Each structure stands twice: as C-alpha cells, then as structure tokens.
C-alpha cells in the first residue's frame, strides 16, 4: 500500500493587463466554443485588483458566471523559444455559441493539452521515425519523405493507384484536409480513401441527404427556439455539451419539451424527464420502426403539416423530372428514384397503411417501447393545439441513429420531420447534432468513380477501404490522425490483418540507410505486404506503436494557424500561440514535402494561409463556402487568415454571401428567407440556400419498409442470442472524454476521471455474473461477422446478408474487450454500453464489419456478446481515480 500526495493548487497566476490576447475555438466537439488565450512571459504576473489583471475585474470575483481561471486553465508554454504563462479560458464576452463563457470539461481543460515536458504531454511525437528491428528510430524529414516518395512511385508504377491509399481525419482544419484531398484526388488519383469515421468516402447520414436536408442546416438558435426537441440516438449533454447546457436548457424558449431516443438514461435524459420530457429506451437498431409508427399515428390522426407538405415535398412527377434518359447511377439518384425507397405524399400514405411494422402494437414489440410512450411522442411532436397552431418541433440525430441502421434510420427520421413541417424554418429544423467539427475542405476532382464497388444494377458505391486492405489490395497506406482499428468494426480482425501485412511480413529494414530502406519496402510490396505510414501527435496503440513502418509527428491546435467551422457552419481562426514540439509539422507541410518529391505541382505552400486562400474557390460549391471572405481580404490587402482573425470568436457562418457590400453569414440552410433576389458581388448562388437540396428544391419523402432484404436478415443474424446469455453491447461516449482520449489521458484531471474505459451494465444483467461496479468485465462475441470480397453486386439480392453468407463472403471470427463495470439502472436491461474508441479496450471488436449495402456505412452500435467478470479493477476501492457513480442524478 502506498500513499500519494494530492496536488493541492490553491493559487493560480492571473494574466497581467499587458498580456497578449488571442482568440481561438475549442479543439474538440462540434459546438466549438469560443476561447481566449492570454499569454505573457514567465517572470511577471497580474494582480488581484481590477487594474492589475487582464480581465479588468477584482478577485475574488464574488459571484457566478464571472471570468475565472481554474488551475486546469493555466500552463507554461514555449513561445518563440521562450517560456510563457498561458491561460486558456472561455470567452466570457461572447454572444454566440457559448454565451457567458459556458464551456465543457473538455474545452475547459484545453490548457492542459499544451506541450509541456513536465506533464504527460511529454509523450508527443517529436521526430519522424522509422521502425528498425521493431524499434521506432528517429530520422530526418528529408530522408523519410524521400523514402515514402520512392516507394510510392514504385507502387503506382507496378500496382496502380488502387494499391495506394489514405485514411485520415475529415475534420482537422481546412488547411490539412484540402492538402489531403489535393494529394488523394488530384495528384495520386486514387479511390482508396476513407475518412476517420467510415470505411468509405460517402455520406454520413445518407437518408437525410437523399431527403434533401443538409446534415448541418440548423443554427444553434433553432435548438434554443424550438418547443419540442426530438433527439434520435443522442443526448447532446454528453457529446456536445454547450448545445445542451445553453441552447437546449435555455435559449429563446427555456420551457421546451425534450424527447430522447436512446437506451441510456444519461444526465440530459434525466433533466428532460424532470422537465416534462420523454425517454424512449429503444432496442438498438429499431429506430426505423419507431419512426414508421410515429408517421402512421400522425397520418391516421391527420396531424401532418399539410400546407408544408403541399409546398415543400416532391410529387411523383417532380421526383422524376429533369433526369431525361440518363443512367441515374449517382448514389442519391439511384437511391431516390430506383427501387424501394422512392416515395411521395400519395404513395407514402399507401405505404404506411400497409406497413406491418408501423402498426402500434407491432412497433411496440419490435422497439421494446411502451405503446403509450410512442403515442405520447407522436402527440408531442405533431398534434396541433386547439387553436390550430402546431408545436415547433425540431429533430436532431446522431450516431445512435445513423450508426445502427444507416440508411433506413436517417431516411425514416427525415420523413417524420417533414410530416411535422420541419426542415427549413426557425425552431423547426432537421439536423445532425454533430461529432467532430466541420474542417473538411475538398480540392475537387475526386476519383470515386474508380471504385470497384457496385450495387446491383451497376450503381455506384464508394470503396470500403477496410475490406480493400483486408483483401490484400493495398501496398502503401498512409494514416493520419486516426486510430483506425478501434474506430472501425471487428477491430481485432482488422488489426490482425494489418499486422499480417506489416510486422508479420518478412521484409524489415535493418538500418536507416536510404537505399536500404527503399529496397526493403519495395521487397515488402512485391511480397504482397503493405508499407504503413502514420501521422499523429501521440503514440497510438497499436497502430503506430506496433505496426506502422514510418511515424510522422504532427503539429496541432495552437501550434499553427488553422480554420474550420462548427455545427452551425461558423468559421473561426484557431490562432497559433505556442511552438510545436521538436520537429512536429502540420500535416499539410508533410504532404507538401512528399508531393513535391513525387514530382507533383502545386504543393509548395509556405504557410497555412497560402492553403486557406487557395482552397477558397474550391469551397464555393459547398455549405462551408468562404470564398467571399478571401476575395474581400485580398481587396483590402490582407491575408484571408488575418481578415478572419478580425472576427475573433464570433467568426462568420458559412456560406458567406455579400449584401450591400458587406460579408453576411447564413444562419439556416434551405430557409426561403435566404432568397435575397439579386446575387451581389462574388456571392455564390445555390438553390439549397433557400430551398431543399434536391434537383427541384423540394424535399424527398422516402419510404423505409422494415423487413427489406438489405437489412432484416442481417439484423436477425446479429441479435443477442438468449441461449448463449448474450446482451446487446452498444457503445458511446460520455461528457468527460473526447474521442480516443488522446488528450484526455494526458490531462491529469481527465485521466483521473476516466483512466480506463467503462461498460455500463444494468443490475439485472450484472447480477447473474456476479458483476459489481468497479469490476473488470470482458465483453465477448463468439460470432463476429466480417464481409470479405464481393465488392460488386450483379443480381438484385447479391449484397444481402443471406446471399453474402451463401457465397462465402462472410467470415466468422470472435471479438472481445475488457472494461470497468458501472452497474446502474440507467441502462435498459439487456443492453450494455461500452466506451467507444477509448485506449485500452476496443469495444468495436464485438461489432460486425458488414456494411449497410445501400450506403456502405457500418452498423457501429450493434455489438453483442456475453459479459464475464475478469476480476476487480484498481478503481473499485481506491479514492483517487474513476468515480463509479451513476450519471443521471437529479
């Protein structure tokens, strides 16, 4: 037994009045709260009196909601090679995003993210490294990019562009993602690319897109103003904190009714229930049935918003209009006009009337929800009041929805929203809540058409990179800022296969001699193996600690000037305020070095602003369009970054347009009030600014028959098997963690809160196994399905689970992980929830890597398995780490 001195900070330095002040936004969730950075040289400090500190207020501040610096918000950083105090605090003066300086625990501890070798951030990757005899060995950028370029040329010449792939974040700032896109799509020209959260480069919430609703069409004000919020597969309290703690708890209408569809009663759910809301603890994967039942109740009672439907929903003829005799094989085209999903108001009513799963009793049985609860939900979201007015209902969806049954859940939710008259009006929106921020910027010229994948009928689909790798088709793979295996499915199987192709291959370098490295890697490639490069800021287990041949150190938030948007498309500059450690460089710089050695033109950027300005014209077609800002900056003789810096934490909502000579942001997409008539200056006009995002500007009402063969046979196969004692093992995050924990585990306070991943288990499921809170528990699935091969469906049923199984394209394997149990009735019985993508345990190992054949997305949330007690964790009886208390306490 040992004792530890607890750090007992009873003092924090205050910034002096002459401290440098810079603005940024939070590095983490989609909300992107505004933050201010105060920086001053070590050796001086501000004082407690108002005229002695940069806040201009007396300390103690004597009340709530005042500027304050918690000890976690202070650090020492290097700036221009000299030590500086740095204080990172929410912007208390801001009127957008996070009024009053509201913030989450994640953003509130941003200062602890700063590189400081006295803290666990000492683990930052600082030099390019090559694995020699299993050990990562420092080398120069020049050498490593020479080697990467020579090997890549060899791969492209001998195996083609389909053997060269990348998997990267989609969000880590415009400057980096534009460089990635330019390399992948235009310079290399490969279809082997997937963002961090998907096996394929395609839509996240495909059914929503196909309905014509942009996933981020809403403004935070809409969530604040709505009267009813229907939240599907999400509690924003846990994953986009200030969207909940400010906009949903208060906003323009603090008395809104909150309806949650999730098997986990988290804190936001508890708050909703205490304030007149509803909790629908749904059986995983069955949201579509709930949506069908809601639609049927609404239609049977005549509660639909008929005026809205008549004006804004495509008729049969409008859906077909404008196609001529074209092939209709673009993804949204074939999904909305061919086959089973196409519908319109007349057809939808007939469909609902005949759909068995839409009947209340049937729906209650499938979803596991009380029929009265479903009725109450339909009433709350749609029933007109006595005076004929309608509730202002908004619809939010996130991973619990679109990561369990991707196409059907999103299409059916959009349909319910449209019936309620939502989608393009203040307080009446349909939008994702969001996960990562919106930092993706394309460079045009995608090579998705080279994807070998086809839905039956020669219909285009994006390439599944995981399967392409598993099948041995990739010879050079570059990962960037992604954990890959724990983020994807059948994680252990995927990791095992990558190990086969890399560390278990016989060709490994014995020295850092350039020619030796190049020849060894060429031998690897020719033996059927794969050369793996990984760019990151930290060691990532097992990707770069055990497998990657080449590891590149990245510079990140606060170390380079970057830009990106949040969930309401608000664009801000994320200021550089300290030096990157060692030789760490922004990823765009690494791409630039590599691309120039490959002989590609247009990669010789000197600073990140060069890319921001270059990318501006490529932003014009999208919802993140900031072209007008870049043009105006140029006219004013400024860098575009500097023009954006002037807008501070307020920034501007994209698409940016010009009105009366001024830059004007766009609050809400699809809103007819956005139609200003004449298009001014360099404004890019888009019909989806003031109408829905379809060819007609009207929304598509899509139908989603529950028992269709693209889904139901898979669902029947992956349900927990009672005879084996299995439960659903779904996964998700909690408020105090961010994604893979890459920063959390290096922030002392957060590492103490969640030192190890959790699994929340209902007492009824824990008791038979003798599991108590604090015990280590193994989740084990003895039948994990993994699709192999068969990228092309020819006959109609080729890509159904049954046909894939018959054809030998479903491999059966096992998967397990170990997590610390929290036994609590906050879970629905029969469903356990494990921490998603947290170091130490890959909960996705018990989930099946068989994508939705329609959209190509995985069903991430549908794991299953038995729960077995392994022993007691270190946290069961200590008082220092990992609270095991339940979350919903009110």
């Amino acid at each position, binding site marked *: *037994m040992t004792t530890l*001195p607890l750090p007992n900070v009873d003092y924090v330095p205050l910034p002096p009045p002459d401290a440098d002040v810079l603005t940024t936004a939070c590095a983490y969730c989609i909300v992107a709260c505004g933050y201010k950075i105060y920086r001053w040289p070590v050796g001086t*400090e501000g*004082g*407690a009196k108002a005229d002695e500190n940069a806040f201009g207020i007396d300390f103690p501040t004597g009340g*709530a909601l005042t500027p304050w610096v918690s000890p976690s918000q202070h650090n020492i950083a290097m700036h221009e090679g000299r030590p500086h105090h740095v204080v990172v605090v929410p912007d208390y003066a801001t009127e957008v995003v996070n009024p009053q300086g509201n913030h989450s625990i994640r953003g509130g501890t941003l200062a602890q993210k700063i590189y400081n070798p006295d803290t666990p951030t000492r683990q930052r990757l600082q030099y390019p490294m090559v694995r020699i005899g299993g050990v990562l060995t420092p080398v120069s950028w020049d050498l490593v990019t020479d080697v990467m370029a020579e090997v890549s040329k060899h791969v492209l010449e001998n195996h083609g562009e389909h053997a060269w792939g990348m998997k990267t974040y989609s969000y880590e700032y415009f400057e980096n993602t534009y460089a990635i896109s330019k390399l992948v799509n235009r310079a290399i020209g490969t279809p082997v690319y997937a963002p961090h959260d998907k096996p394929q480069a395609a839509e996240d919430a495909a059914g929503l897109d196909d309905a014509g609703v942009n996933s981020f069409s809403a403004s935070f004000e809409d969530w604040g103003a709505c009267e009813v919020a229907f939240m599907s597969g999400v509690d924003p309290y846990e994953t986009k904190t200030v969207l909940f703690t400010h906009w949903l708890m208060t906003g323009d209408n603090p008395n809104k009714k909150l309806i949650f569809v999730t098997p986990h009663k988290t804190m936001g759910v508890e708050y909703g229930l205490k304030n007149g809301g509803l909790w629908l603890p749904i059986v995983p994967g069955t949201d579509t049935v709930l949506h069908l039942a809601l639609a049927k109740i609404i239609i049977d009672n005549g509660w639909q918003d008929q005026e809205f439907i008549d004006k804004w929903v495509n008729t049969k003829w409008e859906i077909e209009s404008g196609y001529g005799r074209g092939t209709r094989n673009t993804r949204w085209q074939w999904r909305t006009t061919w086959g089973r999903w196409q519908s319109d108001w007349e057809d939808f009513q007939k469909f609902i009337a005949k759909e068995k799963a839409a009947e209340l009793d049937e729906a209650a049985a499938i979803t596991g929800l009380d029929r009265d609860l479903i009725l109450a939900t339909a009433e709350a979201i749609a029933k007109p009041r006595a005076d004929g007015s309608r509730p202002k209902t908004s619809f939010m969806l996130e991973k619990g929805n679109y990561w369990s049954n991707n196409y059907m859940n999103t299409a059916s939710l959009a349909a319910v929203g449209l019936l309620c008259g939502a989608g393009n009006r203040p307080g009446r929106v349909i939008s994702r809540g969001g996960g990562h921020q919106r930092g993706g910027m394309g460079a045009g010229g995608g090579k998705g058409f080279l994807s070998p994948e086809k839905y039956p009928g020669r219909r285009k689909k994006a390439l599944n990179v995981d399967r392409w790798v598993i099948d041995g088709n990739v010879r050079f793979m570059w990962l960037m800022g992604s954990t890959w295996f724990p983020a994807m499915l059948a994680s252990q199987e995927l990791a095992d296969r990558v190990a086969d192709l890399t560390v278990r291959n016989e060709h490994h370098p014995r020295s850092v001699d350039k020619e030796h490295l190049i020849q060894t890697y060429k031998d690897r490639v020719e033996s059927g193996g794969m050369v793996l490069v990984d760019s990151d800021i930290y060691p990532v287990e097992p990707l770069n600690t055990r497998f990657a041949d080449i590891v590149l150190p990245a510079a990140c938030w606060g170390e380079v000037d970057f830009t990106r948007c949040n969930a309401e498309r608000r664009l801000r500059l994320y200021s550089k305020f300290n030096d990157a450690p060692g030789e760490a460089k922004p990823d765009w710089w690494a791409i630039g070095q590599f691309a120039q050695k490959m002989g590609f033109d247009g990669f010789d950027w000197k600073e990140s602003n060069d890319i921001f300005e270059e990318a501006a014209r490529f932003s014009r077609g999208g919802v993140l369009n900031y072209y007008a800002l870049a043009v105006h900056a140029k006219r004013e003789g400024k860098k575009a970054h500097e023009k954006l810096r002037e807008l501070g934490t307020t920034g501007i909502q994209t698409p940016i347009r010009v009105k009366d000579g001024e830059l004007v942001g766009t609050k809400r997409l699809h809103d007819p009030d956005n139609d200003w008539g004449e298009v001014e200056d360099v404004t890019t006009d888009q019909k989806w600014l003031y109408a829905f995002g379809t060819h007609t500007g009207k929304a598509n009402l899509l139908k989603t028959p529950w028992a269709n063969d693209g889904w139901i046979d898979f669902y029947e196969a992956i349900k927990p098997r009672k005879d084996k004692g299995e439960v659903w093992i779904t996964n998700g995050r909690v408020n105090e963690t961010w994604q893979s924990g890459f920063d959390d585990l290096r922030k002392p306070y957060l590492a103490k809160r969640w030192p190890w991943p959790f699994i929340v288990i209902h007492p009824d499921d824990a008791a038979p196994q003798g599991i108590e809170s604090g015990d280590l528990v193994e989740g084990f699935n003895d039948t994990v399905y993994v699709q192999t091969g068969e990228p092309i469906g020819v006959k109609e049923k080729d890509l159904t689970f049954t046909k894939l199984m018959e054809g030998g394209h479903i491999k059966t394997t096992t998967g397990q992980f170990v997590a610390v149990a929290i036994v609590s009735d906050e879970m629905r019985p029969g469903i356990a929830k494990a921490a998603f993508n947290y170091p130490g345990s890959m909960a996705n190992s018990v989930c099946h890597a068989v994508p939705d054949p329609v959209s190509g997305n995985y069903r991430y949330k549908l794991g299953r398995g038995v729960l077995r007690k392994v022993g007691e964790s270190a946290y069961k009886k200590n*008082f220092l780490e990992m*609270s095991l208390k339940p979350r919903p306490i009110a």
Partner: protein
Amino acid sequence: MTNVLSHEKGGHATSSCMSRRNFLILGGASVTVLGLLGATGTALANAPELVMSSYARKVVGKVSALKAGEAVEFSYPTDDIQNILVKLGEEAGGGVGEERDIVAFNTVCPHMGGIMDAGTFKASHSVLGPCPLHLSTFDLTKHGMVVSGHSTESLPQIVLAIEGDDIVATGVMGLFYGYSRNPSGA
C-alpha cells in the same frame, strides 16, 4: 507580434506560480488522512502526519451531532465561503472518524460558480449536485471528483481532523471558484 489582438500596457512583477508553498503534503492514514490508496483502509496508522498549511484551524462540528446522510452547512476558512460537512455512511477519500466517512466540501461549483448547498446533497449516492446551472455532479467519496459534468477541478475539499468529539477544519485542497488565491482565514 503580428498575431496579437490587444496588447495593453501595465502589469507588475510578482511571485512565480509555485513560490507559495502552502499546499498540503499528506502522509498516510492519520486523523487527516487524504489520498489513501488501497483496499482495506487500515494500514499506515503510524505514518507521520505531514501537513504544512497556513490555513486557520476551526471547529466546524461535533461527531456526536452528525447523522449519516444529512449534510450540515458551515463557513471556512472565511465567513463568506460556504461548505457542507457530512457523514456519508461509506468510507471516503479524506474521510475522518472511525468509519472514515466524515468529509467536508465547498459548495460553489468550480465550473461557473453555481451555488449548491446541503439540500443539493444526494445521500443515496454520496454525491453533491446537480449544480443548478449546468448539472455537474461530484463524487464525495473520491475527493469531490466530477461524476458527470463540466467542472475542470474537483470540488475544493476541506481537510478535517478529529479532536475528541470536535471536527476541526485544518486546510483546503483546491482553489475556490472566483478566487485567484485561497484566503487562509488565519
């Protein structure tokens, strides 16, 4: 410094961050035990008490007057800083008394200063909260650690000692919300 928004003049030199050494260095299990690791909570009875603190000592309650699960409010180290004293009924980090279950915590939420009090204490979970502003909750068995919520620090814990039937506050672990330096009360 081209990338600076404002750069006013002023400020003065003061002590550096760590010069004031009034933090607690805590030993093993003694009457003011804090941070005890391990399963039984019995050993180290002879470990020296190593508390260095300039905080005032103040009697804040009587052991015999405490009822398990009922929080009592008191001020410390100054009259305008409100805290609760509670016998949790389960062993806790920093707990004193025979069952090591008597603890005391500040009641101002370190997130944004929301006011909690004895009525906010949830005896069934040994949790303080939720904070009325943004719903943070705190685990009083684990030194006031955030259970769920936004505070970037644990609740400041009032260090306690037992002297006969008296419960004595002897120090503070953690910075009070709104303060740049804790008052000592001395």
